[in-house]
């Protein structure tokens, strides 16, 4: 199963809509509650990042019996130093975004914590791609 969601940069009134609709789909598919919850939280943080920093973005969701894969692609300023961005507490969010209680520099860390695999690639001045993968069944190594 595969679907796509658009994200408008700067529009906080719609932030969370993609995460909310993915949550509904996962519930309909009877995906285990705790597994669904983690990926949806990671997606929500990613969605907020697009709204807070980028001009526009898309979320591509692929679900099969083994894993949930989410790719968030945005057109935006990109991330010059990903390692620095990953540090808890680091944020380049605007004052307005911070006043809403976002921009505490916890988003990427929350995304990492709530995904089994996360990869960020970015071209400064063009945009960022975040890939998130969560296993649907507990990993049996």
């Amino acid at each position, binding site marked *: 199963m595969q679907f796509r969601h658009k994200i408008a940069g700067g529009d906080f009134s719609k932030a969370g809509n993609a*995460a909310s609709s993915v949550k509904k789909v996962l519930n309909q598919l009877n995906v285990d509650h705790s597994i669904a919850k983690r990926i949806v*939280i990671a997606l929500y943080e990613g969605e907020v990042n697009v709204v807070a920093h980028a001009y526009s973005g898309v979320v591509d969701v692929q679900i099969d019996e083994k894993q949930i894969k989410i790719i968030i692609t945005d057109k935006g300023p990109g991330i010059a130093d990903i390692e620095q961005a990953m540090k808890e507490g680091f944020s380049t969010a605007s004052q307005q975004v911070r006043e809403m209680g976002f921009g505490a520099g916890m988003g990427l860390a929350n995304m990492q914590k709530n995904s089994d695999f996360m990869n960020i690639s970015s071209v400064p001045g063009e945009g960022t791609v975040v890939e998130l993968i969560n296993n649907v069944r507990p990993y049996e190594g």
Partner: protein
Amino acid sequence: MKIADIIETLDLKLISGAGGLQNEITGCYVSDLLSDVIGNAREGELWITLQTHQNIIAVASLKDLAAIILVRGLTAEEGTIEKSNLENIPVLTTTLDTFSVAGILYQLIKKK
């Protein structure tokens, strides 16, 4: 303990989300940083905050929180009320400040 049980004790006013009044309360989390709530609040907790915009409903819904209490008589924004009714997440307001409402809730929850 349900949301409906604490309304009188805490002199809370229900703003929206009446559909969730029977939600069971398992604890409480106090924060105005949304990512902090996303990272650290647990399912079934009451969330005390001074943020009033509609993104608080998205956070509460994703984390399966019991309800949101706004402090110091703050009221919710229009979009927050709409989403709260849609998601059945009660938004309540109290004239108390964060310290006081958290203190009273602490006593109530620890007694259980």
